[in-house]
């Protein structure tokens, strides 16, 4: 094992891993983090903590990770390239490791124009693939980007995101290959609604042997309503929501659509689990964390292995 990461340990044991997500609050209340944490306790193997997602200012990802760590979680610290240059990034990586964080998810970050500070300057000194390589260089070579040697190397399990549905499709598997080459240990995908298209992508991933070099966790997000499904299809770039899914939700009375959404999500997890190379599932129940336990249980993934 490269690190003390819980998900790395479970993946090595051959377990099908379950992760979820916890968005930090828009304020300094630590209790808000604990409250969300409590909904996920003993439900999942690792919790992603988002880094100012959609460019809306929130409590820092690292601080929230530490609060969750104190609760017994093995947080997956999300770090975006939007807000930090390579000096801050390397420094935060060392700090996170010192605080006992074992997992990092390397992301570009949403553009600031989507958030509450659209007039901000972005940084993008390095990109997500270069970030993966930076963490790997610190961890495995014990060297800073500037070439100097570290005293005490950060032992982080390196993750990244990949969107199998974004354009241009033809380079999506190739791009995952770049992430693996850069040093990525695991991947969490964008939420999958089109299992067929995802399977096709996984086929390309297997052809390149990438599934053997990094663990692929398939991303899912339960739909709350037909309206939400339509909204995501129309407004979220790189989101592939098949019409059949929207129709299925719309065919159910409004008050039962959320339950139908959960049912669809569970079915989807069961399908994804059967795809060769899928090593786990990442459940992103945005502001719906209370449903994660139900989904995990219904998908037959409960209780989690020790």
């Amino acid at each position, binding site marked *: 094992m490269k690190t003390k990461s819980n998900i790395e340990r479970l993946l090595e044991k051959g377990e099908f891993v379950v992760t979820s997500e916890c968005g930090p609050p828009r304020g300094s209340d630590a209790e808000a983090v604990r409250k969300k944490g409590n909904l996920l306790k003993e439900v999942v193997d690792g919790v992603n903590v988002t880094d100012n997602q959609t460019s809306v200012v929130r409590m820092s990802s690292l601080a929230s990770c530490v609060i969750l760590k104190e609760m017994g979680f093995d947080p997956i610290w999300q770090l975006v390239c939007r807000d930090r240059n390579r000096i801050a990034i390397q420094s935060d990586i060392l700090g996170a490791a010192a605080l006992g964080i074992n997992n990092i998810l390397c992301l*570009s970050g949403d553009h600031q124009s989507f958030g509450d500070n659209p007039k901000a300057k972005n940084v993008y000194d390095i990109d997500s693939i270069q970030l993966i390589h*930076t963490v790997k260089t610190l961890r495995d070579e014990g060297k800073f980007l500037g070439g100097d040697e570290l005293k005490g190397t950060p032992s982080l399990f390196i993750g990244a995101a990949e969107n199998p549905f974004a354009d*241009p499709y033809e380079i999506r598997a190739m791009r995952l290959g770049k992430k693996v080459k850069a040093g990525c240990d695991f991947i969490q995908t964008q939420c999958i609604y089109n299992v067929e298209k995802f399977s096709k992508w996984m086929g390309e991933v297997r052809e390149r042997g990438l599934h053997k070099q990094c663990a692929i966790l398939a991303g899912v997000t339960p739909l709350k309503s037909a309206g939400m499904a339509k909204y995501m299809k129309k407004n979220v770039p790189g989101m592939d929501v098949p019409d059949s899914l929207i129709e299925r939700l719309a065919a159910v009375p409004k008050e039962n659509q959320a339950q139908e959404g959960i049912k669809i999500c569970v079915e989807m997890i069961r399908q994804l689990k059967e795809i060769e190379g899928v090593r786990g599932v990442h459940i992103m129940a945005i502001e719906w964390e209370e449903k994660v336990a139900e989904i995990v249980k219904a998908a037959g993934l409960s209780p989690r292995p020790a």
Partner: protein
Amino acid sequence: MIVGNRKPLEEILEMVKPYKKILLLGCNECITVCAAGGEREVGVLASELKLSRAKNGGEIEIKEHTLERQCDFEYIDQIKPFVDDYEAIVSMACGAGIQYTAERFPGKVVLPAINTTFLGVTLEQGVWSERCQGCGECILHLTGGICPVARCAKSLFNGPCGGSSNGKCEVNPDTPCAWQLIVDRLKELGQLENYEKIIEVKNWSTSRDGGPRTRVREDLRIPKDS
């Protein structure tokens, strides 16, 4: 060319409020080509300023003058004979020209009438588009001749991000995704294998991040004491 936009009239009116005699100085280079601060735009702005002043019961004397360039003292010096007749210069050059005019006349108020925006090209009449950020270390040979620094909203070197959709950038549906363009071009050139190479962390010290830049060609310089 350097592309810019003329500032809104209200903003210019606010700047020239204290003055009754101004020299409105156009530039005949890039800023003329992008129809922001050439002779024609100087004429339009002068009329607008005079009309507004008159409407508010005031007066303003404006001398319209367009220089060949405002980025060379030899041209800027052409206003020397009459510059002192005016309280302020309103420059319609790019940011470089405005500053260089101010630098030549340290005692004179020089006001900007242009918001300088980018280094770009003419897409069609009336439409200009950004192409270069002057980062000082060109990588166009790796990216099919399309610059991710200038044309990707996140300046990703190993893009695209997950926000590329139907060839467009998530930041603006009218903007092409630079990485879609790069992939298309690499394919056309039969160089898609280039895409698989990781472009390493960039040296930004050649860009503005390294501090203001100066270029010296010793062989072209005229010795100071000759």
